[in-house]
């Protein structure tokens, strides 16, 4: 009955013991490895863009809760004005903007441009945030702005000089994805409505499809570009807006330097009323300086 040879038994025990030791040895290697087995927490992707704008157009970013985001933007004259106007630097127009974050994902803004003495009020809402585990692969931010011209003579027709004729509106969605630490891209469809148009046969509504992106070339420096394609040009001299820029971040400030063929710095102007031609040198140098204040 007892046919199990003692030698085999001891051999088996030896093997068992060996495995046992080996397993313990493995385990003793690193306590940290035990902790590393836990999954990293999922979080919303941060800093898709450095600023709330890519160049002219909105990025998917909003100021955080109780943060006042203040931007002073300058746009100089056409570079092809030549040396007499110091390549446009004599002719600056500026835009001042205050955006305030009511929550981490929703902000309200007011702005004023010297160009056409325009006032703006805007709302911006981060509807969807990209997540680190890619369950949400891109972010969607909605933006709406109402613009009012304030210049005294904005139309030759005296009967048209009503307040509502001064108004225009732009609605857009910013669909953005941070592909890597360096590369972020955005797709920005926009709809612009102008209450007053130049000619009776001009369209009041304009659709544009925009694309923008940034590529970080250093820890605090990125190259940016954006392009807006007008689906239907309503006049021969209207161009698609193309801008190239550099973002430099210095902790609390972001400097944005750019060249663009758009003169205006608010949505209706750069999306639908760009007239500068890149090939003619009818382009503008500009810079934005943004600063955040916490409350």
């Amino acid at each position: 009955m007892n046919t199990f040879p003692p030698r085999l038994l001891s051999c088996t025990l030896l093997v068992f013991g060996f495995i046992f030791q080996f397993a313990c040895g493995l385990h003793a290697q690193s306590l940290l490895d035990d902790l590393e087995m836990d999954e990293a927490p999922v979080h919303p992707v941060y800093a898709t863009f450095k600023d709330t704008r890519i160049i002219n157009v909105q990025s998917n970013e909003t100021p955080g809760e109780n943060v006042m985001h203040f931007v002073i933007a300058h746009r100089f004259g056409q570079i092809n004005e030549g040396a007499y106007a110091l390549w446009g630097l004599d002719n600056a127009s500026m835009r001042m903007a205050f955006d305030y974050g009511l929550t981490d994902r929703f902000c309200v803004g007011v702005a004023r441009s010297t160009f056409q003495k325009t006032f703006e009020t805007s709302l911006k809402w981060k509807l969807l945030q990209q997540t680190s585990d890619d369950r949400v692969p891109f972010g969607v931010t909605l933006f709406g702005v109402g613009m009012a011209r304030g210049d005294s003579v904005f139309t030759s027709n005296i009967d048209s000089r009503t307040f509502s004729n001064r108004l225009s509106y732009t609605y857009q969605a910013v669909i953005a994805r941070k592909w890597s630490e360096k590369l972020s891209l955005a797709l920005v469809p926009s709809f612009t409505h102008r209450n007053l148009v130049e000619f009776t046969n001009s369209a009041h509504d304009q659709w544009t499809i925009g694309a923008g992106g940034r590529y970080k070339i250093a820890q605090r420096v990125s190259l940016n570009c954006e392009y807006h394609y007008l689906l239907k040009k309503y006049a021969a001299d209207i161009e698609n807006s193309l801008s190239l820029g550099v973002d430099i971040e210095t902790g609390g400030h972001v400097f944005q330097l750019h060249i663009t063929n758009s003169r205006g710095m608010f949505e209706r102007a750069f999306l639908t009323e760009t007239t500068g031609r890149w090939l003619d040198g009818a382009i503008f140098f500009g810079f934005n300086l943004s600063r955040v204040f916490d409350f």
Partner: protein
Amino acid sequence: MMLVASHFCIGQQWMTRNGTVDFFSATFVENIEATNEMASGLLAEDGRFAFRVPILGFRFEKALMEEHFNENYLESTRYPNGTFEGVISNWNEALQDGQWHEVIATGSLTIHGVPVNREIPSKLQWNGKSWQIETEFTVATAAHEIPIPKMVRDKIAEEISVSVNLSLSPR
């Protein structure tokens, strides 16, 4: 079989997944504070100790500070965790008497992907159910190759104070 074997030879372990880490940077211009409640710690019967904190779990008062902390300084996408691995050098069973004991955690502290050997004085108490560990120490940003540009040097301290609170229950 190896799994079974390894299970038997682990011995007693104590663990937490929601330890607290606070840090504080003080200069005459600005104080910066952040809190993280996602630290995990593991203590073995033989006094070996491991600790891990996800860098993205630090919460700051200002959203932009948090962004800069992750994007510019700690590069948390590349280096997602801060870790410590070592031994509690004067560890023995007699510590389990309900009193606070001064101990020294000796090992490797890794932040920003750069390991630094440290001896960190800590306090330890067995409260009948779990081990309480408390420690305060400083982290030199330069030692972990965290560059601080000249422009913000008066806002960010070169030595950051860190405090850790863990309550390790039987695993």
